[in-house]
């Protein structure tokens, strides 16, 4: 019974596809299951995975946040340039960036929760606004990374060496941050009443209000959390790259939303979970990074991620449609005589 239920889940299919794809690459190139390739993959998924965690929670609450790359960029750029050299410890940079992100997220949350405007339009608007502040008022351009963050960025968890080619790959400390974040998000979504409130609000707002959940508060919380996370991730990104590159994260929102949807997180809210979001991001990263091992030029990587998004989301959409159109009449065997 439990296994049957498992096979009905999107997460299950994504996991199977990931496994099949990894094996395919391994068979074709013999290079997939090597230490440096795995470490490379884990490193490339670190930032998208963290973004995905935030986006997943917003999506489940019935909203969507398109402004997180802008929030991440602006808070990161602000702390890295205005607080350059002020601290040797990286912690204050993270804290200030998270605070800035939280404020920007609160703007999103307030407009969405108070006036009930569509979250997508609101966050596209604020996204423009935040980027405008960074590019116009702060006059953003490439900038050297402050020393406190530089040392953090150079901290490695481990280094993998490919025995054949001699190539090495480092796993940055940010990977550990990502793992902690995923665990915390899992605990929040599954083990706290706040997590249940997020699911309840995303499932049926009116029912949630009648059940005594604080709908406005839950929405505010979600957007503030997403903003604060974005600030944190922005600083992670610059310290991983060892430079302040303000335009580097712009445009990530669509891939992140797509990865969530791919992993079974519903755009209308209430459905999905952390496991799906993680698997969705993993699949997208693995495909776009492994094409080269299959002998496909990296210029094609966008085409393939595009195809994955379309096919992957279409499969779950079709499943849903079929589920709705499915008939359940039990037909009796005997042909009865009419009265």
């Amino acid at each position, binding site marked *: 019974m439990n296994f049957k239920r498992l096979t009905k889940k999107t997460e299950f299919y994504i996991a199977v596809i990931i496994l099949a794809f990894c094996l395919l690459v391994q068979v074709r190139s013999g290079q997939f299951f090597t230490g440096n390739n795995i470490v490379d993959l884990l490193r490339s998924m670190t930032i998208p995975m963290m973004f995905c965690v935030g986006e997943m929670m917003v999506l489940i609450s019935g909203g969507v946040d398109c402004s997180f790359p802008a929030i991440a960029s602006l808070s990161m750029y602000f702390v890295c340039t205005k607080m350059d050299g002020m601290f040797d410890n990286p912690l204050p940079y993270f804290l200030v960036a998270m605070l800035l992100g939280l404020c920007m997220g609160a703007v999103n949350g307030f407009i969405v929760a108070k006036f009930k405007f569509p979250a997508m339009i609101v966050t596209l608007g604020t996204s423009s606004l935040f980027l405008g502040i960074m590019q116009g008022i702060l006059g953003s351009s490439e900038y050297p990374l402050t020393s406190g963050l530089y040392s953090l960025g150079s901290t490695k968890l481990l280094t993998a060496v490919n025995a054949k080619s001699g190539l090495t790959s480092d796993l940055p400390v940010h990977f550990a941050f990502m793992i902690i974040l995923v665990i915390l998000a899992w605990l929040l979504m599954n083990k706290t009443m706040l997590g249940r409130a997020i699911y309840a609000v995303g499932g049926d707002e009116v029912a949630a209000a009648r059940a005594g959940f604080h709908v406005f508060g839950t929405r505010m919380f979600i957007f503030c959390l997403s903003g604060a996370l974005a600030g944190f991730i922005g600083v992670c990104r610059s310290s991983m790259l060892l430079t302040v590159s303000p335009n580097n994260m712009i445009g990530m929102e669509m891939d992140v939303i797509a990865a969530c949807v791919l992993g079974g997180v519903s755009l209308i809210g209430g459905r999905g979970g952390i496991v799906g979001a993680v698997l969705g991001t993993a699949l997208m990263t693995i495909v776009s990074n492994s094409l080269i091992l299959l002998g496909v030029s990296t210029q094609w990587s966008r085409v393939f991620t595009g195809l994955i998004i379309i096919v992957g989301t279409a499969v779950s959409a079709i499943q849903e449609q079929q589920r709705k159109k499915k008939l359940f009449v039990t*037909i009796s065997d005997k042909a009865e005589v009419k*009265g």
Partner: protein
Amino acid sequence: MSENIIKITGVKKYFGGVKALDGVDLVIKKGEVHCLAGENGCGKSTIINVISGFYTPDAGTIEIDGKEYSKLTTQMAIDAGVQVIYQDLSVFPNLTVRENLALNMEVASGKKFVSKKRFQEIALEAISKINFKADLDEMVENLTVADKQLIAISRALLNNAKLIIMDEPTTAITQKEVKNLFRVIRDLQKQGIAILFVSHKLDEVFEIAEHFTIFRSGKNVFSGRTEELDEQKFTYYMTGREIQEEAFRYEKRPDAKTVLEVRDLSLANGFADCSFSLKEGEILGITGLLGSGRTELAETIFGYHKADSGEILIHGKKVEIGSVKDGIANGIGYVPPERNVQGLFMEQSIADNISITRWKDHADRLGFVNEKSIEDSVAHWVKELSIKINDPQDNMKTLSGGNAQKCVLAKWLSLDLKVLILNGPTVGVDIGAKYDIYKLTKKLAENGLAVIIISDDIREVLSNCNRVLVMRQGRLAEERMTSELDEASLSALSVE
């Protein structure tokens, strides 16, 4: 301690200039099944919201269990034992049965963390109160409406309910499920719980309720015991007009042609070997329990599903119906049971909804839509079907159930139909509008249209159809003339 669980005296509630409640009284005794009836807009929902503490009345007093409340809040109402089961049931489709049962309690007790053990205990306690067997791990979206309702009821009972208000509890469930619901209600009554049953399904309220209160336009028009009422009086109190229901008298004409013939039609998991024919001017009823295949059969004739085998003939000619487009092209119209979802675009204008099936006829050669032509056609149908609207450009969702249903009919009638299939045509429709729809259907049949009514409302089938097919487990089990049947015999046929 008082013998009344609730006593409402002279309650008034205004919204702007509209008097939603204009000094109403309502008294419910402990352990009583009380029916509140009235047409849409009579103030039923408003009084529910007053009792649940959601609205503060502008005048009047509320007494719960002998205690007078000057300012009743929702929490006070819950603490006093008032529970409302809303029409939409307020369940979470995306969560499991267990979570749905336990969440409200856990929120109320201010818990911060989820404990599966506690959830399990609460859920088991809840379902044990009404002996409801449910798979606690199932997602609620996969359940039938009747099961969702039982979840809402068992959840309400957790809060030591003394009065349960059920808003239109029988609109979306089948007769068999209604019987089960009534069993549950009688059980609750034995435990001393009072039920306020809000409905306008005649046969049901007469069966279950001991006491009636009827509202019209925000005022009391009747309050008394069930024995003091009969159907005639009830309809009069509800609508304020005398309505004489006339049974459909089908005049068999020797020259009437067979319009639709279905031969050995089968669809996997839908129905098997269905054969019947339909002459012009006939109204054919198809009845059976939910899950008997009646809806699937209708949807297949319309082209929503494609039959696996068998033939459909229109005017004696075999036709291929593999899609809705084919169905419409062959002159078949279908009014679905969930009109809000399947039959109408609720967010669009009334005019667009009525003209949607005929866009092409309203467009000029370049494909631009001619607004004047739409206006004319909408004006025609609004008059023809006496649809009550303010402005054709208003949103569809501003209309009541009866008027919305008339719009669905208008949409189809503006096409040149040969067969009209009505599936549950008066579900959620006021009595007044219901008779309008019946009258209209009969008129259409008299003008030569072949009509199929699919319904589990026995009374509706008997008074509107000349012939009835009964479906059981995906097969046509009986074919009878309605003149040989009465309510009891037809009811027995469908559950046999």
